């Protein structure tokens, strides 16, 4: 196409070099159709997102009609009498993700600080960083397999000790035997660590060195500088990473399903089997009856809305707290 225009220009004489070249209709057509094509492909994102809400919502409509908002607060999940309430699963989802965050945030942010300060040689720091990122790549079903055969036998004596010492606290009132909520929390912690560590490390690395040097210059110690200058400057990224991890924890399915025990009745104890919305869906979808299927879709809709809110909140926090440096 370019070649022919060049030949055309040469043939029509040197004057044409200074006249405006009119774009042929075919070129314009190609341009606009390509623009429309990629625009449509971009639109696919919106179509899929809205499609998810419509498909899941319409499949859930029967259960929404049958149970209404009572679905969220009722702990009864009874396929025999065809009565469904998702309170146990919603509580399990929130409990496991919050407990996992409580464990993973100090560990992850602490590791990130350790990796951005000059405590150890840059070479070892790079090795640790790379290894943490490799952990993020391990599929969750493999972590679930590992949790069943390695983590559970290893952690059980520790949980039993906690039960013997603090069994009077309702949360620890069950003697751990077999799968349970606490193992799910532990495996979620392991899954969240790389996310929180990597994002916190990147945001701490992006804080200008001038800020740290200025803090040292006015007499701050290393940890005063970290707590009063570095972390506040990187807080938007760190909080964003934590919210991202929260969203990931609430939607995590395979590892949790394999180790949580999939018990649909409510139990206050953290050492007893329980379930989450995601594990409820994964576990019951196969043999669900009609109304049960609709109830599972309703639960999926609830999960979708919770994670949607968390993600939107995360994006808002990141924009709101972001400090800009020249």
């Amino acid at each position, binding site marked *: 196409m370019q070649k022919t225009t060049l030949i055309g220009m040469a043939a029509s004489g040197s004057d044409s070099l200074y006249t405006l070249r009119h774009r042929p209709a075919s070129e314009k057509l190609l*341009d606009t159709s390509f623009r429309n094509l990629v625009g449509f492909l971009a639109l696919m994102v919106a179509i899929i997102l809205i499609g998810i809400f419509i498909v*899941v919502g319409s499949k859930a409509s029967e259960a929404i009609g049958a149970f209404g908002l009572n679905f969220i607060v009722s702990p009864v999940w009874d396929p025999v009498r065809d009565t469904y309430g998702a309170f146990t699963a919603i509580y399990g989802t929130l409990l496991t993700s919050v407990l996992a965050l409580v464990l993973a945030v100090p560990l992850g942010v602490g590791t990130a600080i350790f990796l951005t300060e000059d*405590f150890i040689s840059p070479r070892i720091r790079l090795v640790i960083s790379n290894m943490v990122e490799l952990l993020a790549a*391990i599929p969750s*079903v493999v972590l679930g397999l*590992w949790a069943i055969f390695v983590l559970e036998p290893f952690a059980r004596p520790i949980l039993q000790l906690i039960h013997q010492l603090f069994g009077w606290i309702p949360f620890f009132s069950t003697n751990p035997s077999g799968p349970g909520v606490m193992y799910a929390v532990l495996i979620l912690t392991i899954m969240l660590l790389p996310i929180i560590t990597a994002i916190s490390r990147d945001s701490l690395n992006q804080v200008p060195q001038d800020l740290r040097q200025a803090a040292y210059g006015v007499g701050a110690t290393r940890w005063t500088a970290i707590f009063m200058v570095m972390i506040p400057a990187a807080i938007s990224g760190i909080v964003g990473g934590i919210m991202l991890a929260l969203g990931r924890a609430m939607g995590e399915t395979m590892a949790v399903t394999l180790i949580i025990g999939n018990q649909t009745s409510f139990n206050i104890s953290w050492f007893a089997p329980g379930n989450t919305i995601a594990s409820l869906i994964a576990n019951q979808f*196969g043999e669900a009856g009609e109304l049960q299927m609709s109830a599972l879709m309703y639960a999926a809709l609830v999960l979708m809305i919770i*994670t949607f809110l*968390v993600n939107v909140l995360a994006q808002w926090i990141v924009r709101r707290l972001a400090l800009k440096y020249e």
Partner: protein
Amino acid sequence: MTHASFTAKGDLLYKPQLLRNRGNRLLTGIAGAFALIAVIPLIAVILFVLVKGFSFLRPAMFFELPPVPGQDMGGGIGNAFVGTLIVTGLSCLFAIPVGVGGGIYLSEYGGGNPFSEFIRFGTNVLAGVPSIIAGVFIYGLIVSSRILFGSTFSAVAGGLALAVLMLPTIIKTTDEGLKLVPQELRWGALGVGASKFVTTIRVVVPSAIAPIATGVVLGIARSAGETAPLIFTAFFSPYWPDGLFEPMATMSVMIFNYAQMPYEAQVQLAWAASFVLVVMILAMNLLARWISSFAQR
């Protein structure tokens, strides 16, 4: 005089017994301990999966079908291995054109208009959608409605579910990779008379090919290990794949099913499949790093 009064107040030597210095050492120790605790499970996971998985792995496993549960030992993961390649390949087929095209729109045509900002927001939301929701969505859209030639569980449905998960990664990396292309390159191409289409396809995209390829490989690595979207789309089959509109075994679903079985043969196959899956995914992550090293020219 000022110099004398300054030294009279105290020297500038480090005093380890000061409270703040003790506090500093304590906090440094805590941070170091946290880093250690964070690294231990990582080493434990990788070590167990690689050592235990490898000990159960036999080369013949890639050519054999899994055994009947509870009956005999041996057997292999051949159908699941092939199935993972097919389903992941299908998901690439769906996600790469849409993702790269959408990324081109956001970077080259969108500018800052409200539509492209909305799509960027939507991409972030889609990236946060739990993987099981993608499975439920495709189940409701395709599997239960039998829209694809009357088939229910199928490899195509599994590929579509994985594509939903890959899409945000590919769009984001394409968008960000294209944004890094110097504006002068576009002006230069447009200046010598190239149309916008030719500029984009022949100049802009080729110079951002390394970040785009990195994003694609990372997207594949993420989706190859996903299980939740597959358990009610591609489902499982103990036989060799016999068509794209039939249920198909994948390694991730095989691990999930066999991990819960009380039989030693199935558990061993689950470990062997984990080994193969983890090695594949780690190799793809290394490949992504290798490709992205070209981007830092």
